[in-house]
């Protein structure tokens, strides 16, 4: 039940993009087509899960015991940056097809605040064990994927619409994202987060 609450809470109620405003750059940047949106979501799922596991372990067994939590920001970003490089190298060797699909998105992920954001949110929850942290990270990544794909689908339609000149491109996309966020507000109260 506890896990169910975490999953529903992360995907729908406090959706990482539409409720917590994390990962807006890829949300607006690579959501032009459904295919690229899915590719980006896959890469985020992959890196977010690994990054959360590693940063959770670092926080729990290095930063807190030695009383150096002020190094959190600097150590997390270094871990994430090197992790992304590592994932890229391993993926290239082990699974070329997966690398083909996700490769171009990986370098973009270092500065994707969703990864760092979820890592920080996870370590801020005192009652989380490692399994809960993993479930939380995966659910957030699914929430990201859901928002991305929905938005990409909407934007493909937007291209065919007759939008007033000043609103074309980013402004109308932001308004659409706002309405989508409003729709997600309907999930409020589904579970207590």
């Amino acid at each position: 039940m506890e896990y169910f609450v975490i999953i529903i809470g992360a995907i729908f109620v406090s959706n990482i993009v539409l409720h917590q405003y994390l990962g807006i750059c890829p949300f607006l940047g690579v959501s032009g087509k459904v295919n690229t949106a899915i590719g980006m979501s896959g890469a985020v799922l992959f890196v977010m899960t690994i990054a959360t596991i590693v940063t959770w372990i670092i926080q729990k067994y290095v930063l807190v015991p030695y009383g150096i939590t002020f190094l959190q920001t600097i150590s997390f970003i270094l871990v994430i940056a090197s992790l992304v490089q590592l994932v890229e190298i391993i993926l290239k060797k082990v699974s070329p097809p997966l690398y083909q699909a996700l490769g171009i998105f990986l370098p973009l992920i270092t500065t994707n605040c969703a990864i760092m954001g979820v890592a920080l949110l996870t370590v801020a929850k005192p009652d989380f064990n490692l399994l809960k942290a993993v479930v939380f990270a995966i659910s957030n990544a699914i929430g990201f994927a859901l928002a991305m794909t929905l938005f990409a689908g909407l934007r493909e339609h937007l291209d065919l619409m007759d939008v007033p000149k000043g609103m074309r491109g980013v402004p109308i996309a932001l308004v659409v994202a706002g309405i989508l966020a409003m729709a997600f507000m309907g999930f409020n109260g589904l579970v207590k987060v």
Partner: protein
Amino acid sequence: MNQVANFTKGFIKENPVFVLLLGLCPTLAVTSSAFNGFGMGMATTFVLVCSNIVVNLIRSLIPNKVRIPSFIVIIASFVTIVEMVMEGFLPDLFSALGIFIPLIVVNCLVLGRAEGFASKQSFVSSVVDGLGMGLGFTFALTLLGAVREILGAGSIFGYKFIAGDGILVFILAPGAFIVLGYLIAILRRVK
């Protein structure tokens, strides 16, 4: 380069939020009131100016291959300073901004200026550029925060001028997206 033009470009012509669309996560997240937007903007300005200075000074010492990680470490150090100072002196603002203070590290605006400007231009230009871009960012965040606060709570900088509640949705997530969308559209029209 003309330093005056270099300084003022961040406000309208190359505004980081409205034109370059950089650093949108903090822009949307912390602008539920004008003061929060202003605080976030000033914190980012500090990090931007300091990292521009350091990157510019040591650019010839950094090997080209590891320049991005080095820049990130420099930026992260200044973010940690901001975090500690703000927690000590402005605890209310610190808790209002929450995880978006450490997330200045991954703000693409800061890394973008370090990589695209400070590592190439002269020292004075880099400082002026950091200051101009940072204040432009602050201007955008304060404007967005002010509009959302006026519509959502009927107040400005915490000073209430309408009795009763505002349109609550503008303080919540959807309002952030919609107000930013319309502000960009209006700015395009003005230009």
